[in-house]
């Protein structure tokens, strides 16, 4: 439990560094450190599937961020923009905290009771699907519609990026 809190504090520090540092490359690396901390936290909470996925997605995200954005000139923001953005952020943070404080009252405490929903998957999963990795059984059997939707989201994201970038790329040839 201590390790989770240490990792959480490190992730919060990394996020603050990513926002505050002036150099864009350092900022991207700080974001990568936050993702690595999240992956380690998932590993400590005994979720190796989530940890693997988080780690590899973080790696490819950092590579794309470094390659695609670091050399670009970012438009500077004026003081009026900054005050407006700060006001909007404060309003949203207050609203989120107020809603979350009410919503979290309904949640059970962290880690207790031990798996009320997942118990059914654990007892019936092997007989119902034949898969020994229950995460795969849930993703591709019990909740395959979710996976179909996620696949559709990624498909449309890739097509959208290609549709925006490809025409420009072809014209250069």
């Amino acid at each position, binding site marked *: 439990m201590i390790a989770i809190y240490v990792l959480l504090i490190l992730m919060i520090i990394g996020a603050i560094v990513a926002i505050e540092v002036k150099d864009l490359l350092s900022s991207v690396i700080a974001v990568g450190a936050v993702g690595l901390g999240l992956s380690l936290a998932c590993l400590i909470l005994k979720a190796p599937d989530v940890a693997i996925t988080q780690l590899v997605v973080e790696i*490819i995200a950092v*590579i794309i961020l470094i390659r695609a954005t670091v050399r670009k000139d970012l438009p500077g923001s004026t003081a009026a923009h900054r005050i407006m953005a700060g006001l909007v952020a404060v309003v949203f943070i207050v609203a989120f905290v107020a809603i979350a404080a009410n919503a979290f009252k309904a949640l059970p405490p962290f880690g207790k009771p031990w798996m009320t929903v997942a118990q059914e998957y654990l007892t019936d999963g092997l007989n*119902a699907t*034949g898969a020994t990795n229950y995460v795969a059984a849930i993703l*591709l059997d019990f909740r395959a519609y979710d996976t179909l939707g996620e696949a559709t989201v990624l*498909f449309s994201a890739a097509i959208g990026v290609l549709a925006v970038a490809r025409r420009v790329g072809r014209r250069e040839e």
Partner: protein
Amino acid sequence: MSREHDHGMSVVVKTVTRLTVGLILLYGIYIVLHGHVTPGGGFAGGVIIALSFVHLVLGFGKETAFKKLDENATGFFEGFGALLFLALALAGLSSGGHFFLNLFKEQGEPFKLVSAGIIAPCNIAISLKVSAGLFSIFIALTVLRPESENK
């Protein structure tokens, strides 16, 4: 991608890339094929497969990487993976059951590679789609340069 990196990085990077890129690809395929037995699965394995091609682009430049897997092949694999996943879902429907019915789940035994019915083929379909999709996003955002930067 910056101009000085169009033909890859230094000899040290190229040598290490030549040694490691195959291992990364094999590890991704292992994660995909054992997705229903051990942690991992189609999404994580697909990202690792995409990372092996990203590694090739970063180390050797885009020409060498496109010889292995060019843009059109990427688009083909993305569409093929999505259609394969949908076909596996429709196979349950056409055999008299419901959408995403787990066919052949009685075949094979648990903890073996051949088990879990259509979960393993679904993992393969998702890995094809995810790896091709992420690699195409990578090359679209980094290799294909906007026109304004050429001048």
